[in-house]
């Protein structure tokens, strides 16, 4: 029997992206630069997060015409973002044939109470999290891949580090917990009990977990990998920098060789200025994107 859109197939594509870099792009030319640099996938957008942040207003799913042009320009998988809870934007992207949907806090949420029921789709979803409970709620809704949120569009890695450390700490805590305490842990982190048990047994998330939100240098990418990420998303960090092609290539190599300081020296050298960035600590709670969704 032939089956499409199974859990194995959805989760499987994320497994194939491991050790790789997924780059935000807004034009077919940028998509080509990303592919030539060795990106494993691109995220098709109208504006990178730094520009969304600067522009203000309501941020929505990109125009399908823009996404289609990017899909035609490259052979690697193409992802695109929908607003949290906006299942019709997701239906549109699925019909368009997108390879992965990011239900993303970078766009303005469409529903403050409910995320999309991702089990209802054949196309796989990636969702953001700040801690293990949030990750497991998204997986419970059908996300086949997770990314830590960080603080998108800042070029400041501090929030990405905070979220990755938090997820990893909570996993280690569950691993060391006697089985009879897991229900209370599930209650405390508001996460599905079956998934809490699975994480305690596996010692990791049951799906691939990338880092996102503020990665701007090869060293940032390697830092997130050493902290336990399976791969990285780079949003504004590449195309808001002085030399996107050189930086993109350097971040790809730093992600593949994250444990090899000799490679990290080589790829960090002479790649032009990084994006200027905004200190995440200087943002008010209302200015932070990471608090969108729950």
């Amino acid at each position, binding site marked *: 029997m*032939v089956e*499409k859109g199974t859990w194995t197939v959805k989760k*499987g594509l994320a*497994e194939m*992206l491991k050790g790789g870099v997924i780059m935000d792009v807004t034009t077919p030319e940028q998509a080509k630069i990303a592919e030539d640099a060795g990106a*494993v996938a691109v995220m098709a957008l109208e504006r990178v997060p730094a520009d969304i942040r600067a522009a203000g207003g309501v941020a929505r799913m990109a125009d399908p015409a823009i996404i289609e042009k990017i899909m035609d320009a490259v052979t690697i998988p193409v992802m695109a973002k929908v607003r949290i809870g906006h299942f019709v934007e997701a239906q549109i992207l699925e019909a368009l044939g997108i390879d*992965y949907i990011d239900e993303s806090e970078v766009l303005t949420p469409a529903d403050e109470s409910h995320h999309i029921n991702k089990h209802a789709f054949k196309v796989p979803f990636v969702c953001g999290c700040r801690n293990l409970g949030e990750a497991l709620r998204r997986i419970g809704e059908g996300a086949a891949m997770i990314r830590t949120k960080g603080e998108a569009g800042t070029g400041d890695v501090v929030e990405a580090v905070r979220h990755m450390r938090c997820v990893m700490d909570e996993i280690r805590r569950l691993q060391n917990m006697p089985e009879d305490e897991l229900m209370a842990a599930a209650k405390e982190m508001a996460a599905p009990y079956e998934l809490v048990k699975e994480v305690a047994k596996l010692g990791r998330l049951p799906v691939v977990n990338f880092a996102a939100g503020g990665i701007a240098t090869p060293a940032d990418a390697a830092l997130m990998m050493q902290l336990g990420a399976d791969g990285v998303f780079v949003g504004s960090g590449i195309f808001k920098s002085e030399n996107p092609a050189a930086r993109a290539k350097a971040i790809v190599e730093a992600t593949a060789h994250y444990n090899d300081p000799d490679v990290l020296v080589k790829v960090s050298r002479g790649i032009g200025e990084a994006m200027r960035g905004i200190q995440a600590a200087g943002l008010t709670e209302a200015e932070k994107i990471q608090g969108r969704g729950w």
Partner: protein
Amino acid sequence: MNLKSNLRIGVLGLQGAVKEHLDMLEGCGCNAVDVRKVGDLQGLDGLIIPGGESTTIGKLMERYGFDVEIKRRVGEGMAVFGTCAGLILLAKDIVGSSQARLGFMDIHVRRNAFGRQVESFEADLDIPAIGAEPFRAVFIRAPYIESVEPGVEVLARFDGKIVMAREGRFLVSAFHPELTRDKRIHEYFIEKVVSG
């Protein structure tokens, strides 16, 4: 006859589903090696090139000299198994593409040949070389082999398309045996291709 526990089989660890292959090899009783540096290729009896993005793996192989060293080790008798992206990298001809490759097998390959991710699927395959029981194969944005030159043995087809083949010490599958719990294809590689 080689004992499996004496065999050293590497998995090219630049990008993709590396751990799944390493776990599978260990489950088969081999010495599994995560190949991250060119020097790690030394002493390997076999190498698996995993699923991932073939353009990414191809570029990283070239930038760090893995292609040259893999070719040299193949000359010394190292066997190679490519799954999905690995199949693409082992082909001499990739239809419509000039991307980096190893080009060991006389096969003509089409990338993303079954369509985009929403067309990715699981299906039962008949693979007589590994036994009568069907194999549950996972195809993810998979390629297929359009045609093969003489000397290449076709091991499985899906819907008429060639999805598994062998040429001497090279084995390829368009699907991902490492995403299942069925060890028969890895065992075939170890027992028939590496030790054969």
